[in-house]
């Protein structure tokens, strides 16, 4: 019986926790590398429509986002807006007329382009995150402006729906 307990029966020796910081640091670095901080706060509500034939977006750093939807409740009361759909670029929301008149999208795409390498500029994608209840009028305007800005790769952001079949 006591053959294996020669060490003096005072329970287990304490586990060394010296490597615990290393383990935690490893996890920390993993999350630091994978984290994408949200740069913009949404000022419009976007519920994307559902689709089945979706593709995953690659290279997040090369994607610029355009949000289309009606302004959030707090924005409506703060800025005295109606529920009419607006376009958000970075942190600013624009009315449909402003987009066309001031070519805001072209400015936006230009500034996005300037932040990237020249090599990567032709791989840039614009993701249109539009609410499912907006009408095509405003979406078409945005698309026309994108064509003018020569940003031709687009992606309609959708939720992945379960295949009906």
């Amino acid at each position, binding site marked *: 019986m006591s053959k294996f307990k020669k060490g003096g029966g005072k329970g287990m020796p304490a586990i060394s926790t010296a490597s615990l910081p290393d383990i935690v640091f490893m996890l*920390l670095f993993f999350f630091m590398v994978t984290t994408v901080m949200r740069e913009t706060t949404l000022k419009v509500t976007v519920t994307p429509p559902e*689709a089945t*034939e979706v*593709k995953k977006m690659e290279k997040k750093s090369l994607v610029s986002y355009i949000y289309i939807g009606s302004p959030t409740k707090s924005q409506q009361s703060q800025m005295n807006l109606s529920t009419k759909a607006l376009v958000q670029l970075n942190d600013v929301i624009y009315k449909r007329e402003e987009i066309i008149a001031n070519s805001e999208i072209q400015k936006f795409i230009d500034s996005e382009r300037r932040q990237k390498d020249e090599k990567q500029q032709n791989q840039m994608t614009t993701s249109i995150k539009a609410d499912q209840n907006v009408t*095509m009028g405003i*979406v*078409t305007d945005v698309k026309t402006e994108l064509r003018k800005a020569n940003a031709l790769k687009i992606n309609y*952001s*959708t939720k992945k729906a379960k295949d009906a079949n």
Partner: protein
Amino acid sequence: MASKRRGLPEINAGSMADIAFLLLIFFLVTTTMDVDSGISRKLPPMPEENVEIPEIHKRNIFVVLINKNNKILAGIGSPTNIIEINGDGSISSLKDDVKTFITNNGGSPNSSDSPDKAVVSLQNQEGTSYKTYIQVQNELTKAYNELRDEKSNVDYGKDFNRLDNEEQKKIKDFYPMKVSEAETKAN
């Protein structure tokens, strides 16, 4: 004994784990793991001046019209002279209609010549809802994806997205996705 008195005393690293945990929890909370997904499309470049638009024979155009009440009209021909296929305004048969249109290969005189000549023209109005538009885009994508899958299964015995780049390109060349979108019509 003498060596212990020399040099700096060791810093206690016991709280290192706590600090690291704190940072770890911060990043855990701020991380968003969601992957963005969506339907990819390529917009046509702005038309240059004095460039003639190539004419397409009307049998090679599949027109999908979505009106402001989100009703769908599909047919083959030019928008003014359309042979209606689906007039009831529903989306259910759209995918199969597109597939039969693309794979006609000159069979029926009122349908496409060959898959690489077939063009799908999508037109919508100001008041069309984005939801319906995406549903239609989804159906069109599905039609092409299924055709590509079928062909890759016949040619290579596996699904399209399991092929290597070169094989995928061959199939894509056989079934090029030609979806043209005209300007939104005012109503």
